[in-house]
Structure formats: structure tokens, C-alpha cells
């Protein structure tokens, strides 16, 4: 019951920074500043009051999310519920197998079904194809299947993904590029720094492409964690990349990424610190949501 109200609340209260602020409380690893804490308290109280207002006495006149009212059965592959679940599986795939030279995108969903589970969540079963964006339009499509479980809890928690892609091992042809890229930027005097990739006109230099892909892979950790049945995230820009001092032979990169959520159309900004090496892959060490709403405090820059 609460989940239906929650999704209605998201719409009625309109994706305000309050809702996003609350979700960031458990993912931020930095100490909140005083204005941030006040903001969060205010938001909690405000949300609590709104929830009280929407308590079960009233029935919404029309099922506004008729799609996810269906509890069991086959889903239309071209409709958004299947696509959103597939995107979550994609984020998971990229966190495990993405690299500066490999980022996967959804090609299409072939089959999908969903069912409510006893613990109070919804599990999606998906059959879909992905392509590697790094290999351009020439790349082959990979067939994948996944189980995506969206928990239905009072506070948001990350979806759980089980994923199998055929022939994943066979496309491991980027080892040389990864080594070269690593060797080029691991020396202490490497201090890469850039903004707005791609730029307003979609331009991106060859040199920046691996950093942009790394940003996307790192952002996938956040997108995976923040996803629900009511979101559909995509990274639309690497706002900045600043190389930090290498640590334990890992490239250390601080990114600011801009994520676009399709249902709310909001652009959400996250700062994150990630490490990468050919051996260990991408790890995300710190994430911090950056408020872009005018009435929130400015992030430290």
C-alpha cells in the first residue's frame, strides 16, 4: 500500500530535491554540513506529513500506474516497465564488465515477465540483447537474461540483479588498449582534467573517450543503486574529470556526472571518486549527491 502512495507522492510532490535529498542520505560518505542537515530534517518532516495526508481513507480516482498494478504475467517488451528493469540489468552489467574501452547499451528487450514475491517486492525476468557502444555500429549483439528484484521497502534499497550473458568472455579484445591507456596515465605526472564531455554540440575528442566510458561505468554503480520501478537513469554528460594521485597502482579519478531520469525528466548531479586498473576493473570509493535545486545549499567546490 505504501509503495503505491510513494509512487504517487513522487509525482504529486514532483521530484523535488526533497525526495532526492533523502535518498542520498545513506549513500553520502562525507559529513553533512549544518544547512544540509537542516534541509534533510525539514524534508523528512514534510514528507512524513504528506504521507499522513495520503493515508488510506481516499481512493485515487483512476489507476495512474495501471502498468505496474498487474501483479503477474508477461510484459510487453516495448513498454516501459520491461525496459526500466532491463536498464537496471544493464547498469549491473556495466559495473561488472565495463571498462575504458567497453560500455554496454540496451539494444532491445525480447521477452519480459514480472511477479510479486513474498518478501514484498517485484521480480522481473528478462530476455534482452545488448551492444558494446565502444565498438560502434559494427559490434555484435549479445544475448542476456536477467532476474531483477525491486524490493518494496519503506526506505529505498537497491535492486538485486542476477545476470547471464552468452559469449561475454569472447569479446575480451580490449586488453591491449586498456594496458596502453593505463601505462599512459599511471605515472605520477599525469594530471588529466576536463569539463563538459561531450560538449553542447556532442563533440568529444578521441583522447577523452576512455575517460567518458569510465565515468559511465562508475556512474552505473550509482544508477544501479538508485534505481526503482519508477526511475530510468542514463548518464548524459561527464561534467568533469579530475585525476587524483594514484593509489595502490590504481588510476584515481574524481568525476562529476549528470544523470537524466526519464520519468521525471530531472537532471541529477553526482560527484564520485573511482579507481581503475586493467586487473581490478572499476571500483567506486565515494559518492556524493550534488543538489542542483536553487533553494538547497551550494556544494563545496
Amino acid at each position, binding site marked *: 500500500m505504501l509503495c503505491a502512495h510513494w509512487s504517487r507522492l513522487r509525482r504529486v510532490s514532483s521530484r523535488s530535491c526533497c525526495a532526492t535529498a533523502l535518498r542520498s542520505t545513506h549513500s553520502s560518505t562525507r559529513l553533512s554540513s549544518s544547512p544540509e542537515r537542516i534541509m534533510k530534517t525539514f524534508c523528512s518532516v514534510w514528507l512524513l506529513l504528506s504521507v499522513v495526508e495520503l493515508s488510506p481513507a481516499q481512493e485515487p480516482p483512476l489507476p495512474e500506474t495501471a502498468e505496474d498494478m498487474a501483479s503477474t504475467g508477461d510484459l510487453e517488451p516495448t513498454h516501459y516497465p520491461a525496459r526500466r528493469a532491463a536498464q537496471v540489468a544493464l547498469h549491473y552489467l556495466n559495473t561488472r564488465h565495463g571498462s575504458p574501452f567497453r560500455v554496454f547499451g540496451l539494444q532491445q528487450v525480447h521477452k519480459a515477465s514480472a511477479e510479486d514475491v513474498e518478501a514484498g517486492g517485484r521480480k522481473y525476468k528478462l530476455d534482452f540483447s545488448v551492444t558494446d557502444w565502444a565498438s560502434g555500429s559494427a559490434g555484435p549483439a549479445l544475448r542476456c537474461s536477467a532476474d531483477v528484484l525491486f524490493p518494496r521497502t519503506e526506505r529505498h534499497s537497491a535492486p538485486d540483479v542476477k545476470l547471464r550473458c552468452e559469449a561475454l568472455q569472447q569479446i575480451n579484445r580490449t586488453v591491449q588498449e586498456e594496458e596502453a591507456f593505463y601505462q599512459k596515465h599511471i605515472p605520477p605526472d599525469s594530471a588529466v582534467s576536463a569539463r563538459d564531455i561531450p560538449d553542447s554540440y556532442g563533440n568529444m575528442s578521441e583522447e577523452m573517450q576512455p575517460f567518458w566510458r569510465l565515468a559511465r561505468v562508475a556512474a552505473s554503480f550509482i544508477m544501479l543503486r538508485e534505481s526503482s520501478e519508477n526511475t530510468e537513469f542514463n548518464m548524459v554528460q561527464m561534467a568533469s574529470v579530475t585525476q587524483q594521485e594514484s593509489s595502490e597502482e590504481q588510476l584515481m579519478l574524481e568525476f562529476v556526472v549528470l544523470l537524466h531520469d526519464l520519468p521525471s525528466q530531472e*537532471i541529477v548531479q553526482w560527484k564520485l571518486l573511482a579507481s581503475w586498473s586493467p586487473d581490478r576493473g572499476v571500483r567506486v570509493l565515494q559518492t556524493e549527491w550534488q543538489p542542483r535545486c536553487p533553494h538547497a545549499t551550494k556544494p563545496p567546490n
Partner: protein
Amino acid sequence: MRLYLAVFALLAAVHCEELFNGDQVLRINAESEDQIQILKKLERDVDSGVSQPVDIRVPHSSLYAVKDFLKKNNIPFTVIINNVQERLVREREEMVRNAEMESKTKSFNFAAYHDLETIYNFMDTLANHSKLISKVKIGSTYENRSMYVLKFSTGGEKRPAIWIDAGIHAREWISHATAVWLADQIAKDFKENRAPVPSILSKMDIYLMIVANPDGYVFTHRSSNPLYRFWRKSRSATSNPKCHGVDLNRNWDAEFGGPGASDDPCAEDYRGPSAQSEIEVKNIAKFIMSHGNFKSFMTLHSYMQLLMYPYGYIGIDAPDQTELHDVATMSSKALNSWHGTVYKVGSIFHTIDQANGASVDWAYLRGIKYSFAFELRDTGKYGFLLPADQIVSTARETWFALRYIMKYVCDHPY
């Protein structure tokens, strides 16, 4: 025939013409070899066989003699052009206009994103050099910029019409860029007599609004800062002094106020204080309603590669669901035939999300049956920042889709 006259015109231009006033061009249909021999006496350059007609220019002073000669020899002829000079002058004027427009539009870089001023200048170029195209001002924006729509018409009085708009969401730059290319392509296809454009324009008018949200578009150009480049809404003041703008595609009078939009002025999908509160939406709605004879309404957005139809506000099927789905499916196949780009087809509600106050619903609820919304390239790799080198191929595949729909609309009057 046109080539013959074009040669005339060229010769006239080159030799700083003698006047051809009162001269006529006669079309002669020789019926036998003998007749051709006779004709050769008349005009040494006659180059024809029995089955082919030949056109000759006859000076005014010789008209009577020549016609008399032809009649006496039973050679059938018709007067093609009654006054060559008049026709030549008009032809030459049009050639000069076309040449100007061609050089201006040839030098226009369609493979680039342009600012508002450049797009407005381009619209002037098209409208000033073509009888087909006129620029119609339908009102002003919140910040007092002109709102223009390009009208493609071969005449008639309020013919059944097709509406296409782009750029209602400022950050979706590929939609404006596609519309610029489309304007040029429609003009080209008409001029070069390429089906189905001439036949569509013989019965219908096309209205193309390249920038439906000029204030927003200008704002996205102000700086590369994401706060500007990713602006979506209009630029009106709201009840919150720190937040501007209304989502123009949630402000229409179509189940306004439902959950498929926000009531928070700071939200990206803020619907506004009331339906049609935004001057931009009011201007377009007023124009279409007072015209009263639109048969199709199509709006271009990005991104996600989707071709959608009503409803957005609710999940039940629209009465014309089956037909709309078929048209959209065939249209997406046409699109796919150009470059292999795959679009998904479905209602707005089911494909993207619930949307209240959307323009496509508004049009459909007003009786404009063939209403569609496009989400152009891509599916998320670049999103709103689609590289400029994809503009022309995106525009061309979109044109394949639009052409299918327009032909269908034209073939299915209601």
C-alpha cells in the same frame, strides 16, 4: 519542353536579349516524313521524328505566314506559349531566385547545430525565395520573441493541413536541427517534383514550426554550463522566485492536473498554474483551433527512438488505436529502411510514462486523428548531446517516417 525554354532563357540572358514580345511557340506534330521535310525548310534546326512533337518559336512578324503555311500543308500544331517574352521574364526571375536560394541553402550547414538567429535567417531565406513557402507569425513568447511557423502551400483557402513542431523542449537540439533540414527537403522535393510531396501539396498544406520554445532554446545556448544546456522548459516566472519555466508539453488543455506532471515550479515537468497558462502554448493552440482544418499533428522530441500516439494521460486504448498503431508501425519501418535505426512504437502512456497536459493528447481530443510524437536519436549513448555528424542521417530517416504518415493522411481524408 522546359529544357527548350530554359535554353531560350539562357540565350536571352547571354546575348542580352532581343525582345520576344508577341512571339509565340508552336508545338508541331508532324505526321509523316514528308511533313518533316517541309518543316526542315521552315526551320533548319528542326530535329524530330514522326512520333515526336517539335516546338518552334515564331517571331510575331511571321506568325500569320507560318500558321498559314502549316494549315495549307495539313500539319497539326498548337500554340504552346502565347507571349514568349512574358514567360521568359518570369522564368528568368524564378531561375535567379532559385539560384540565390540554392547558393544560400547550399552554403547552409545542415550538419551543425545553429542558434535561434541563424535558424530564423534560414527561414527568411526559404520564405523569400519560394512561392511555396511563407513565414507566418503566430504570436510572441514570454520574453517577447517572435514565434514563426513555415507554411508550405500551393494555394487554396484553408486546405486540410498537417502540423509538425520541433523544439518544444529546449535541450532536445536534434529536433530543431531535424526540422531545419526537413524544411529544406520539402522545398527541394517540391521543386524537383519528387513524389509524394507535390501530390500531397496539391491537396494539403504543411505547417512546420522549427522552434516552438524560442526562449528556452536561446537559454540553452547561453553557456556550456549544464544549468543552461540542459534546460527543458519555458522561461516564464513562476510562483517560486528561484525557479523559472513551465514544461510546455504538460501545459495543454488535455486532462491537465493529473499525476502525469508536477505542480512544483522547480520540477522539470512542472505543468504550470493552469492549462494554457504559457503564452507559447496559447499561441499554438489558438492558431490551430482558429484554422480549424488540421488533419494531423506531429511533434518532434528527443531522445529514445520512439514513435508514439495518444493517449499520454491514461492507459486505455484510444478509439483509433489499431489504425494509429498500424500507421506508426509502417512509418517506423520506413524510417528503419534508411539507416537501420530501430524505433519502438506504442502509446505515450505505455511507452514512456503517464503524461498529463501533453500536446498530442490535446490535438487528438480536438479531433485531429493522426497525432504522433517522435522521440528521435539516440537511445542514451549521447542523449541530448547527439553529435552533429548524426543530424543529417537522423533528419533523413525521420523524413522517411513523416513522408509515410503525410501520404497516409492525404490518402485518408476525414
